[in-house]
Structures are given as C-alpha cells and as structure tokens.
C-alpha cells in the first residue's frame, strides 16, 4: 500500500458521510437495537433496525460519537443494509464492509471502520 493511498483516507466519500450522515437519529419503535464502543479511542455507535415480518430490514438508523471513520462507516452501513434480509446480513462479511468504505485502513483504524458492523452482527445473532 503506497503512501498516496493513506493520503486518501479522508476523501470526499468519507467526509460527506461524516458531515451529512444517512439516517442519523432514532426510530420511534425499533424492532431491535444495539450499541458498541471502541474503548481505545472512545468511538460509540448505536444501531436501531425496523425489521418486517418477512425478516427484511425496512429502516436502519444510527447514532453515535467518535472519529470520522467510525461515524461515516455507520452511515454507509445504514444505507447499505436497508432492504436486505436478516439472512443476507448473516452472510455479510467484514471485508465487504471495509470495501464499502472505499479507503484503505490500517489495522487500528479498521476497528473504527468495523464498529457499526460489529454492533449489527451481534444484534442479528441475538435475533435468531
């Protein structure tokens, strides 16, 4: 990975999601919710899902505080998972999440990028 790649860590895609997040807020009656923290840097992400009877995610909202990577990733995640079924979420891998972010992350920052993803996955496992 060249140094130029790291320079693009904060490209417009991430910054746009950080500044104007998709579905940042709360659902009035979520089907399920979960929260998680990144203790190393204090990133915090909360996820709320509205899941219909067929197991399809109708709406996904997040709230939280933290670094641009963690918050932008949560926003990108919410955009991605609306319309997906819980089964599809079970198949959703960490690498796919990282690919969604488009920017290359070091191991440390991957923890930030995957925080929302981890919150989602543990919530979905609990629903089974």
């Amino acid at each position, binding site marked *: 990975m060249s140094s130029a790649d*790291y320079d693009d860590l*904060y490209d417009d895609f991430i910054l746009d999601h950080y500044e104007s997040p998709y579905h940042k807020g709360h659902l009035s009656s979520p089907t399920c919710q979960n929260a998680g923290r990144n203790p190393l*840097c*204090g990133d915090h992400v909360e996820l709320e899902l509205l899941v219909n009877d067929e197991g399809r995610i109708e709406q996904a909202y997040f709230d939280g*505080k933290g*670094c*641009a*990577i963690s918050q932008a990733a949560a926003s990108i995640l919410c955009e991605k998972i609306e319309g997906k079924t819980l089964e599809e979420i079970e198949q959703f891998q960490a690498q796919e999440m990282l690919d969604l972010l488009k920017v290359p992350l070091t191991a440390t920052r991957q923890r*930030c990028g995957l925080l929302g993803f981890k919150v989602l996955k543990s919530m979905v496992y609990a629903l089974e």
Partner: protein
Amino acid sequence: MSPTVARESLDVEAIRSDFPILHRPLPNGMPLAYLDSAASAQKPRQVIEKLTACYQEFYANAHRGVYQFGVRIDEELDAARAAVQQFIGAAEPEEVIFTSGTTMSINLVAAAWGRKFLSAGDEIVLNEMEHHSNLVPWQQLARERQARLQYIPLTSDGRLDLNRLDEFLTDRTKLVAVTAMSNVLGTINPLDKIIAKAHQHGALVLVDAAQSAPHLHGNVREQNIDFLAFSGHKLFGPSGVGILYGRRELLEAMDPFLTGGGMIDEVRRDESTWAELPAKFEAGTLPVAQAIAMKSAVEYVEAIGFDRIADHERRLLTQAHQQLADIPGLQIHGPDPESKGPIVSFSVDGLHPHDLAQLLDQKGVAVRAGHHCTMPLHNLLGLTATTRASFACYNTTAEVDALAEAVRFARKKFRLA
C-alpha cells in the same frame, strides 16, 4: 532562578545526531517530527551501543557466574544501580530496585507494603489527573483491604487544589500517591507541600516520576520522598526496565512481591527465607542488559544538564502554546506554560483526535490520540479522547511549526472554517 551568567544553551543538532531514528526517512517521504516522547522516548546511540555491547561482549545471567562474563555482568549491573542511585539522590544502592517499569514498581508497593500495612478504614489519597498505573493498583488494594480512596480536587486549569488539601489529607491517610508531572495536562505538582503535609499526618508518599524523570531533577532525600517509581523507556533508556526507590526501612519492613529464584536466602520444602535488599524484590532473571543500559541513559541526561533541557523545552512549550492557541476551535487542556512540563494536550472542534492524529501523521508529525491512560481525567474534562504533543531535548522549533501547520492542514481537510 535565572543565572547571572548566561547559560550555554543546549545544542539540539548535536543531540539529534545522537539519535539514529530521527534521521530515517518516513515511508511517505516526510521528515519525522516525533512529538510523542511522553509515551516513550527515542534512544541515543549511547544507550543502544551499551545494550548491544552487553549482548556482544559480556552477557551472562547476573549473580550466578564464577566465570569472567559472570563477574563482568555483575560489575556492570552494580554500576548501573549506583548510577541510578546517584541520579535520584538515594542514600544507598540497595534502595534502588530494578523492575519491569513504573507500573510494576507501583504494583510492588501496593502489594508488598499495602497488604501488610493498610487496614480497614485507612485512606489512600489520589487525584483525578493520575495515570491508570498510579490509580488502579490503589483502587484494587483499597477494595481488598476495605480502605477508602480520597481524591484531591483539581482546579479549573488542571492543578491540584491545595486550598482543599486538608479536607482530604487527614490522620486517616496512610499513603498519598501523586504524579510529579501529569502525562496529559503537563502539570508539575508541588511535591514539597504535599510531602510535608502527608508526613505531618504520618502518611507515606509515593511519587510517580514516569513522566518527570527526563525533565525535572529530583532528589529523594532532599525531597523526603518515601517511594519513587519511573521507567527506563521514557528516560531515553530501553523498554522493559524501570525503577522502584524505597527508603531502606520501608523496603525492609515490606514482604516480598514476586517470589521465586533470586530473592531467597534459603528454600526448604515448606518454607523459605528472603534475601537482603535489593535482591528481595528482584525475583527471577532481571532484564539485565536493559538495566545495565540504564546507566547510559541517566548519564546521557546528566551530561546535557537538567537546566539546559528545561530552558530548551520551555522555549518549545511556549512556542507551541502560542501557535496552537492561534488556531480557531482549538482548546489546550491544563495550566499555563509556567506551571507545566513540555506537554500540550488539546481538542479541536469538529475533529476527533484519531482523525487529527492520522492527518498529522500524513505530514510526518507523530502525536498521540486517545485517553492516554487517564480515563478519570478525561471524564472530568467531559471528553473521551484528546490529542497530545510532547517535547524532549531532541525536538526543534521547526517541529513545533510543523505541528501547528499540520493542525491547520487537518482542519482544512475536514472543511472547517
């Protein structure tokens, strides 16, 4: 305190030439501005060479060998212990214990002194700026012994509120644990006042000198310090070694901490007796080469001189305060430069410390982001994380310029006005 004759100032370029790592190009081609010495200091070749010489020329396990290397390594270890003794002004070398670092040193006192001498209802006095290593061991000890913790309050600018000391330091106090210099706020604590008050009440004082060791010259006898703990790696020494100083009568009254080889006098099936100081507290094989290299580390600092180091670092600190205070949305945490050591922790509106540190890294500026092992302090500040720059004798005014420039670059990148 200023001398009538102008003191020859520190030759920063000469010092920098002693540190091989400072001249290595970074992968991204930027020059390195290492502003994280508060986390760990870089090593001069004198320390690296001592370490290497030990392994290449006379390495053996200490206290075991009749052969030449065994004799030589013992001499080197004794010399290192004596060098540290002199560095801190201890009465005897036996009062200098080699540990794995400040954290172990403090755990040693908490266990070996605390379990024996702390009773239910006794109090330990701390404060919220302390590093976790000078907080958690006392917390756990207090739980175990049903003792209570008292916290000296902080002023709004991050100093100990000495006006309220009498509320918290009383006859119930058995130990005061205090840092000589805060690793986040940089605050230099008035040890003399605290130690005097503690001793009036019959309490002991443990000073965490991890941060202050390369910046403030201390003398344990002159200052009446009961226990002192610091690490080699922040003092330009190797990682993996640290020091506990304790007054002889205290160490002799304490039970051992870790037990096993090296700290015994006699071992039978069902009982053992303990070795004399310092061996009593040096169980197992020491980080021998690292302990030996501590001599080179303390000598390196002594050769430059604390006064010259302080002058240089004060210049850098003042410059950093001025330049950073000029940046919109930036808040520095802690007192004014006169009351602190060369550490600047700050927050920038709209820029999380991790993002800021990442962007600074793009410009070759190495700072630390996070809670810096001071969660209670950050809680008090209402923050989860801050960004911290820290200076040492090898930093330059150009590097402080680079810091301020890089923060401005980061703000621009995040589209902040």
